[in-house]
């Protein structure tokens, strides 16, 4: 809250002295992050290596075994599938829109993508349950229930996750597609390149950082998603987010409560490794988007 006053006091004295004090304006933000974000992280790290009040690796060992390992693999598999398929389909959709002559279509799809990429959580799950769930409108209309259809499994979750992942990819990739200059294509054509050669040697290399960045972003979104899965499948699909929630709600053996923290640490490490790929890529692709 004291941030504006920090700016004021830093500058009120005027002259050269302000230069040395203006970093004070960043103190409230940094202190806030350290307290609200840093403390829980330290607690996760500390709690992971503590059982029955003593230092122990038992939690972390338990978190990579049995049902917890299955859940972690399930989450990574689902997120990887959603990321790759979502990135591919999102790019094709974006290219179809970018090359279209109808301005209105472009505006409509971009606005819709902005909204739908934020459409997650509980409402998304319910919209799909109403559509393809056991008593969903389409399920009933097409008689899918008698054909053995179920939305409440791995593939159903993937189908639903794509609903916000594809729009997110469109939002990410459209600026990059707009940045592909017409002159590059003409230069390639004048040198005798066909469409495939143009994409193979010019288009895709320029787009690669953006595409990989999109894959990473989609992976992170699907990996962290909890609400949609909780509302749709409860516990029938093994996912690490559901396991953490389960452990937090007390569904663990007495004394094993810190397994939730160990699972959290596992998740942060995986998400961190994936993000570590993303940040340099984003910087590289920013060069082409100018």
């Amino acid at each position, binding site marked *: 809250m004291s941030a504006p006053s920090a700016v004021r006091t830093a500058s009120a004295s005027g002259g050269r002295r302000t230069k040395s004090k203006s970093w004070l*304006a960043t103190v409230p933000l940094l202190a806030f992050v350290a307290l609200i974000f840093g403390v829980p992280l330290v607690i996760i790290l500390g709690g992971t290596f503590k059982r029955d009040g003593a230092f122990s690796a038992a939690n972390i060992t338990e978190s990579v075994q049995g049902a917890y390992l299955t859940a972690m693999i399930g989450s990574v598999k689902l997120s990887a599938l959603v990321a790759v398929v979502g990135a591919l389909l999102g790019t094709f959709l974006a290219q179809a829109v970018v090359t279209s002559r109808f301005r209105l279509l472009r505006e409509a799809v971009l606005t819709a993508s902005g909204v739908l990429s934020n459409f997650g959580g509980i409402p998304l799950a319910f*919209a799909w349950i109403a559509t393809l769930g056991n008593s969903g409108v389409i399920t009933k209309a097409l008689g899918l229930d008698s054909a053995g259809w179920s939305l409440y499994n791995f593939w159903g979750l993937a189908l639903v996750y794509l609903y916000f992942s594809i729009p997110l990819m469109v939002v990410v990739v459209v600026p990059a597609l707009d940045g592909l200059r017409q002159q590059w294509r003409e230069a390639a054509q004048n040198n005798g390149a066909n469409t495939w050669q143009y994409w193979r040697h010019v288009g895709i290399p320029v787009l690669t950082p953006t595409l990989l960045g999109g894959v990473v972003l989609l992976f992170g979104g699907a990996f962290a998603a909890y*609400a949609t899965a909780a509302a749709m499948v409860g516990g029938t699909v093994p996912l690490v987010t559901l396991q953490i929630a389960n452990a937090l709600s007390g569904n663990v053996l007495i004394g094993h409560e810190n397994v939730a923290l160990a699972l959290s640490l596992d998740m942060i490490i995986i998400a961190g490794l994936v993000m570590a790929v993303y940040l340099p890529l984003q910087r590289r692709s920013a060069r082409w988007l100018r």
Partner: protein
Amino acid sequence: MAALTPEGPMAQLTPPAVAAGPVSGPGRRRRIRVWRGAILAIAAVYFLVPLIASFTFTVKAPEQDFSLDAYGQIFTTEGFGQSLLLSIGLGVATIAVVLLLTLPAMLAVRLRVPKMKPIMEIVCTLPLVVPPITFVAGINTVLQFGPDYLASTPFYQTIFAIQDENFPVVLVLAYVILALPFVYRSLDAGLGAIDVRTLVEAARNLGASWPHLIFRVIVPNLRSSLASASFLTLALVLGEFTIASLLHFQTFPVWIYTISGSQAQVSVAVSVFSLLITWLLLLVLSSAGARQRSGS
């Protein structure tokens, strides 16, 4: 934009190059059009069917006629107003806190201490790496065991005060962290697009005080990026389920989940309704941005 597309005017100016390719011009163009049409059609089906089906689900129960009752019931269902007001209140508080924290810090970094920019960037991007479910695992542990360690300090009362059911400040604190990456990126783009240094120097030379400068010069120039930061934050808070539900606070999404067991139609109606609200917010935002562009 049109000039950048393969079908733009430039493409039409260079028919020899196209014709020289392995596929003739008109044939290739037709193939592209078919391909594009197919993609757009599939996308339209995939994205529109759930929306239409959800709406159908809410207005027509089996063996009943068309009725908008489910939408009327939203407002009379126990807890609707309370949870929606709580979520909106949390959203407004989060926007206020996150902007008060980031704007002065980012201005100071841009104007006076550019050396700190990498630090700011890392600090404001870090929350992206930590999934909300793990964040809440940490917060939950702090809230549970914090009182044991803090029993003899004034912080002891604070731990309980921030968990007030009527206005859980702890959620505002958590949401500020979740919103930080989006707000940072939005403000960074906004500050990059205006010449802050010139504005500040001009205003200071004309005798403006710092508060006057920030609220009368900087803020109006950043209107569209402040608006988009606020919108993203509000959308995030209105939809956030993980942290609120695991800390047992009855926010709007938690309420939707709670009523879904007994009133399936109403919960789907609220879901459709919340998408409409988001859409409306985005439209207002983009028209505000367009107005600013045409104004300047």
